[in-house]
């Protein structure tokens, strides 16, 4: 296969400046991740230790295979929201391996507000369930939660994508024959009681784990009966009398061991047979991506320089290299698995949209997963292009992306503006996974452009009313807040806080993240490819 030749000079000033800038962003990311994992009050730590419970990190370590990867999902959800300390929206979740088997694992963090559920916590749980269903990953739950965060109950409880949906999904997951295994390692109160109840296997830790529809405070308020949590819903009761739980564990460590045993007994699963070959490292160090990507989003860079640092042997077979050159399409391998890559090298024209459409259809037919590397300011605009039907061609690309049945993966590598976000498989187009680089910006348009549009609209309105146009002072009055909001809300951290992605990642880790996710996605078989119509040459 053709090997990409890098044109980057690692000794150049541009490279060094780019590298320094991205290195700063990655340092900040690692600080934020560390804070999310470790920033807990002394009181909460002491309480956890006093109850003889392991920390969430220790629980994850004990359940997952030693010395194996953990691909955490949404570690910075709810970043800077609420009081700024509901790290990861109050839970840890991700994909890991148990006895070599890829599984999805979620764990409440009782050291964050007693593991109570905030609105973003519900959103994260639903996202996790989507991952479980789309990729057919066995679901492991480590429950330790005081239930809904009552002061915000109205934002958690009644709507279609609120708390109830979690249990609805659990029933669907069960119907799909995806194993759900729960360890009760703390409170499972009210709605939380259904998480174990709707699972296939329930491990219950004696002394700390309790399941009840109404906790002791509610029982007392309702009936006046005084009863301890252990008597009301402890492991003994549920394992020997009610039958709600199946396996009794003396402590967290034993529960983790039982979970591992259960997973080791699960039947093997048919995998999607993506084309694979022997994995090989890229010829260029993935960390050089830091020196490839310029600090300013408006400075263009060749996406091939990124691809050369992502794919096995830096090998890319380009599709229609000479046609629609603002979109690079081609076949490559990541950790041995073949992928079809679409990467932006400028604004999308009709030709690039048509090329994308044909390429996506081809990959879909051949059962090859799609990877979108987004650095897109949008589709081309202007009279000539409208006349030539850019909207029709954009439609074809959006339709192809929407209906492709192979797994799609999206990485936000810079700009993600307007319909470009859609055509390049933004969150609404159901990529199996979507990650954001720390430099990325997302919005309907760039903040500067948005301000200009608003000023133009205002001037048009003034002109209609026979008024003079805005003074430059007033223009600034409009531009300032719009730009500020655009930059804040377009920022990667705002995006990840709102679960518009599955996490911000170090660009140098993109290859490994994708490799792990590709492997995880293969747990769901491919089907439905041999139906419908032929591929159309665009």
């Amino acid at each position: 296969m053709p090997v990409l030749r890098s044109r980057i000079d690692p000794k150049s000033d541009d490279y060094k400046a780019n590298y320094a800038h991205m290195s700063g962003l990655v340092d900040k990311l690692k600080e934020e991740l560390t804070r999310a994992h470790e920033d807990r009050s002394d009181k909460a730590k002491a309480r956890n230790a006093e109850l003889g419970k392991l920390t969430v990190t220790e629980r994850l370590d004990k359940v997952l295979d030693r010395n194996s990867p953990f691909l955490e999902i949404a570690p910075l959800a709810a970043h800077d929201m609420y009081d700024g300390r509901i790290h990861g929206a109050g839970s840890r979740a991700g994909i890991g391996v148990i006895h070599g088997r890829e599984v999805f694992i979620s764990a409440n963090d009782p050291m964050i507000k007693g593991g109570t559920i905030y609105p973003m916590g519900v959103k994260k749980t639903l996202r996790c369930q989507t991952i479980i269903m789309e990729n057919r990953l066995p679901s492991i739950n480590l429950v330790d939660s005081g239930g809904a965060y009552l002061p915000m109950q109205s934002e958690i409880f009644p709507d279609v994508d609120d708390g109830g949906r979690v249990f609805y999904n659990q029933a669907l997951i069960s119907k799909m024959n995806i194993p759900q295994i729960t360890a009760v390692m703390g409170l499972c109160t009210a709605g939380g009681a259904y998480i174990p109840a709707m699972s296939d296997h329930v491990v219950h830790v004696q002394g700390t784990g309790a399941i009840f529809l109404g906790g002791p405070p509610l029982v007392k308020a309702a009936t006046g009966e005084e009863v301890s949590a252990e008597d009301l819903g402890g492991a003994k009761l549920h394992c020997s009398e009610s039958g709600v739980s199946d396996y009794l564990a003396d402590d967290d460590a034993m529960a983790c061991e039982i979970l591992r045993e259960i997973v080791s007994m699960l039947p093997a699963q048919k995998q999607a047979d993506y084309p694979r070959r022997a994995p090989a490292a890229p010829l260029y160090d993935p960390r050089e991506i830091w020196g490839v990507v310029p600090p300013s989003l408006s400075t263009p860079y060749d996406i091939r320089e990124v691809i050369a640092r992502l794919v096995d042997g830096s090998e890319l077979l380009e599709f229609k290299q000479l046609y629609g050159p603002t979109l690079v399409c081609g076949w490559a391998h990541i950790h041995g698995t073949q992928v079809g890559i679409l990467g932006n090298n400028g604004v999308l024209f009709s030709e690039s949209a048509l090329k994308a459409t044909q390429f996506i259809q081809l990959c879909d037919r051949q059962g090859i997963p799609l990877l979108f590397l987004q650095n897109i300011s949008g589709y081309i605009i202007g009279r000539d292009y409208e006349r030539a039907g850019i909207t029709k061609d954009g439609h074809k690309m959006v339709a192809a992306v929407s209906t492709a049945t192979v797994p799609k993966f999206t990485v936000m590598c810079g700009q993600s503006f307007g319909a470009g976000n859609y055509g390049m498989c933004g969150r609404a187009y159901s990529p199996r996974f979507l990650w954001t680089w720390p430099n990325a910006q997302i919005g309907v348009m760039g903040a500067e452009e948005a301000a200009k549009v608003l000023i133009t609209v205002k001037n048009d309105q003034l002109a209609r009313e026979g008024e003079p146009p805005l003074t430059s002072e007033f223009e600034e009055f409009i531009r300032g807040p719009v730009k500020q909001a655009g930059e804040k809300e377009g920022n990667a951290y705002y995006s990840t806080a709102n679960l518009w992605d599955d996490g911000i990642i170090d660009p140098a880790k993109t290859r490994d993240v994708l490799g792990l996710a590709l492997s995880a996605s293969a747990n769901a078989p491919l089907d439905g490819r041999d139906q419908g119509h032929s591929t159309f040459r665009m």
Partner: protein
Amino acid sequence: MFDKVLVANRGEIAVRVLTTLREMSIASVAVYSEVDAQALHVLSADEAVVLGDGAPEPAASYLHAERIIEAARVTGAQAIHPGYGFLSENADFAAQVTEAGLTFIGPPADVIAKLGNKTTARQILADAGVPIVPGMRATADDPAVLAEAAQDMGYPVLIKAAAGGGGKGMRVVQSADHLAEAASAASSEALSSFGDGSIYLEKYLDRPRHVEVQILADAHGNAIHLFERECSIQRRHQKIIEETPSCALNTDLRTRMGEAAVAAAKAVGYVNAGTVEFLLDSTGDFYFLEVNTRLQVEHPITEVTVGLDLVRHQLEIAAGSKLTLAQPDVSQRGHAIECRIYAEDPAADFMPCPGKVLYCRPATGPGVRFDAGIYPGAEVPVHYDPILGKLIVWAEDRPAAIARMIRALQDNVVLGVQTATELMIDILASEPFRDGDTNTRFLEDHFADWHPCEDGDAQARLGYVAADLSGVGHAGAADTLPGATKWPSPWQTLAHWTLRS
């Protein structure tokens, strides 16, 4: 010569002795406890006898003199080779063997008894003119006597068990305040380890080298030495790396130490192979430490540099032959190093890590020897010393031997149990070791903060190898699954990996 010999030991040393027996066409008998039923020494012997009901505890198996002698009687073995450890330095056992009409392959019981009591041994050797470390000539349990003796020789002092070895019952005492407490702790440890709580004091030499001399003596009054071994690299008072020749010795010192060792052998009427241990201080003064009345763990480095099979000589001497060599016949050539491979965790204070050897593949190549008691699938039981084997290299000179040992350690694969291989590579590659600047505190001085390299790439490479060897294609999947499973996934190859790492 004997027709049949019983080896009263297990592990690598039993296998080592069995090898020579086979070369000499002598039938062999192994003994074992139930946990060793599939051990290499059992599989390597012509016959094997379970000891008692097979209970694994040493006292019921490899330390049970009657059961071992009974095994020899049942199988018709004429002699017993005790190896090292277990009953090898037990005078009562040697006496019982002789009383049973069998030959004990080692010194006579009375010699073992004399040398086994450290204070008696010091007295005899001092009288023979061998320099000894300043210290008490008798054991004592009276704190006042101990305190006075310590005051006389000056702190720091070393408490030692009279019946001891292997670091058991040993304590370094820096000042008078700690003497009484350390003495009682050492005494009770000695009591529980050797059944004898007697202790005595010695001047503690700071950072001495441990240099020992191999001797061979026959029952006809002839004795020679086979040069020295330096065993300064120790952990918890136990040797892990040994070499010969020692770079601290010049010809003159070597001659004097060799002569002192031969004088010691003659003074006690020593017979068979033995080792006279000395401490060598930085001024070139050496002091007698003790005599090990058996084959040493590190004997192979002497074998490869002098070109002799010590076990063969042991058997010949025990059968009554005269030494076939005189001192001028023996010369040493090149340089040899031994690294002991234990199932232990160097990052956790060398805690033993018994378990199952999932795979092993010994290093090979010119000048490389691996004396081992393991094979792929072998169990390392919790009940005994967790030694797996010893890697020995020989080369023309010390730098070449170091380079060869590093290469051999890198090639010597043992998977499934933790070993200190990585630490030993780092020691051999270190500047002080290369400079020959070794002493018994070497590890504390240079490697106290050592921890294994946590390089994910290296672990990933190991992961590849392990996956390849174990024939696992893909996480939990069988070969029957489609192409997706044929190659390893990053879940197998990335090792420890997180978004933060």
